[in-house]
């Protein structure tokens, strides 16, 4: 028994080893480094001395930065809701009505992944810009007289985010709905539930794993997003991602940047745990 157990655990170590090493070196180590930096002190001309300096964290609660944090969370939240509202019907349609077009439709959903985010964000600049396609169309149709500011607004940032993150919502939703046993929907109808009730009492609760996975996949990266607000947002839509980027690249205040990064990570972890607890155990229990 002992011999056998040992061999088995050796095999397990061999299997898990590479991934564990990879995660340890490229994920955990930088994370610890950031944590250490966040308590350090930045020199005036860059550079950083390690130590225990909590002032970086106090600075995080400066109203100016707090506003950015709140704005980031609100935008990430709205983005998640919009992706869910737009993505659910689409995933539902592909999974349950797609028939032989399923694969083709799914590939279409993933088409945006074929070009880099940067290029896609620039495409939006071209469309929404002062002299862009959108403005020219509006003027041509006589809806507006001159160029209006479509770009550099929170709406533009949201539009870009929804566009970028929609596939991350659709794919997990599709995966759950694809496995949905439609006879359960029929059973609901059979028991007197119309479309509305059948959906909210049976289909939707049973697709919760997909809703949760999709929401997490959209919420987390959109809370850390900096490319889209950089290109499509103005000074009014600086998000945490931009702030952190600025601290590291422009202001060279690595200590404060690290503190912001740690706070973002903690916030996201807290939000996810709250979300999974509240919705997860309530609706998922027993599935």
């Amino acid at each position, binding site marked *: 028994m002992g011999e056998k157990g040992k061999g088995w655990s050796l095999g397990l170590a061999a299997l898990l080893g590479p991934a564990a090493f990879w995660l340890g070196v490229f994920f955990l180590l930088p994370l610890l480094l950031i944590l250490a930096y966040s308590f350090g002190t930045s020199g005036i001309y860059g550079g950083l001395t390690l130590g225990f300096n909590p002032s970086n964290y106090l600075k995080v609660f400066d109203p100016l930065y707090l506003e950015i944090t709140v704005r980031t969370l609100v935008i990430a939240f709205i983005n998640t809701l919009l992706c869910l509202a737009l993505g659910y019907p689409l995933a539902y349609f592909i999974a349950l009505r797609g028939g032989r077009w399923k694969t083709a439709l799914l590939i279409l959903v993933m088409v945006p992944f074929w070009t880099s985010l940067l290029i896609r964000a620039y495409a939006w600049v071209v469309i929404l810009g002062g002299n862009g396609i959108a403005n020219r169309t509006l003027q041509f149709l006589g809806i507006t007289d001159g160029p209006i500011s479509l770009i550099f607004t929170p709406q533009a940032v949201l539009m870009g985010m929804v566009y970028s993150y929609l596939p991350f919502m659709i794919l997990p939703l599709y995966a759950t709905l694809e496995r949905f046993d439609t006879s359960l929907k029929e059973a609901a109808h059979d028991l007197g539930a119309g479309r509305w009730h059948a959906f909210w009492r049976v289909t939707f609760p049973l697709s919760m794993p997909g809703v949760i996975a999709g929401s997490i996949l959209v919420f987390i990266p959109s809370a850390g997003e900096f490319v889209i607000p950089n290109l499509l947002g103005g000074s009014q839509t600086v998000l945490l991602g931009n702030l952190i980027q600025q601290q590291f690249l422009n202001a060279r205040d690595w200590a404060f940047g690290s503190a912001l990064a740690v706070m973002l990570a903690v916030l996201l972890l807290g939000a996810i745990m709250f979300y999974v607890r509240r919705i997860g155990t309530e609706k998922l229990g027993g*599935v």
Partner: protein
Amino acid sequence: MEDRRIQERPPDAPPVDRKVAVALSGITKRFGDFVAVDDLNLDIYEGEFFSLLGPSGCGKTTTLRMIAGFEEPGEGEISVAGQPVQGVPPYRRPVNTVFQSYAIFPHLNVFDNVAFGLRRAGVKGEELRQRVTRACKMVQLQGFEKRKPRMLSGGQQQRVALARALVNRPKVLLLDEPLGALDLKLRKEMQLELKNLQHEVGITFIYVTHDQEEALTMSDRIAVMNEGVVQQVADPATLYERPRNRFVANFIGQTNLFSGTVESVNGEKVTLVVPDGAKVEAVAQDGAEPEPGSEVHVAVRPEKVRFGAAGDNVCTAEVRQIVYLGVSTQYITWLPDGRKLALYQQNIQDAGGYDVGDEVTVSWDARNCLVLGG
């Protein structure tokens, strides 16, 4: 075991005074070019245990789904409790279904599964609790109300599906091979239980099965289907004793089939000549008159054939195979022209010791030998 087939109602009492629960008239359902159900005409009476019996793929589920409202027939009309239901969505039909896969809601516990339909109907509070508890008790699931479906055995899930449907007191309960996934012993138990339950609640059951034994033990009447077409509608005894055609004769129980040419017809009595020249005395179906000279098939059940020369049809045969079945023994004999003839002999005391290879005389009566149509 045979006692179970005791008829609750005399089988040939004409059901004139009984109201029709479900009427199917001229129902045809096509999937593309494929005809799944072909010109189906059935009247199913209130309080009846009615079975749709037939091999897999013959259109039983499709028929049930049309009654439930999940499929619309291409042609024909369906009425439930006297009301035409064309275009009425499933959630407004006074029927409930026990699905083949049970289709129990995995995210709800037993109580909420059973309460689902009642809540939709606006039943609340104490009445809801009482009715759900009573339904659970009826299917012997009391104490399981808080369990999630995944913590139940197959048989228990089956009961949940049953309680969930019955609790709504539907006019008609549709059951699609509800016992198909259970093992033999449990299936036998549940057959009895279902039959008793139906008797208790008095709801019309339309029961789909491909198991002829199950249909025979449980049903008041059975519609035998093949390839979308109803072959015969009758009570179990009539189906067994008076199968209308070869399909029914073969599908229900075991049977010996002969083909031959009609030589003479004398009222009900038919004499035919089989290929080797021997004569077989048989009887025609009620009302049918075979033409002399036509090719027909006749059937005789193995238990109606006996050893000895006391019968209208007598022939010699050779015993080829003996199968001991406990209560009886099956002998497979070969007639001189090479046709097989099976017969059963009851194992009363230690009678009838025949061996493989013995020459025997076998006989059967004309009245047990039925000329089949189609």
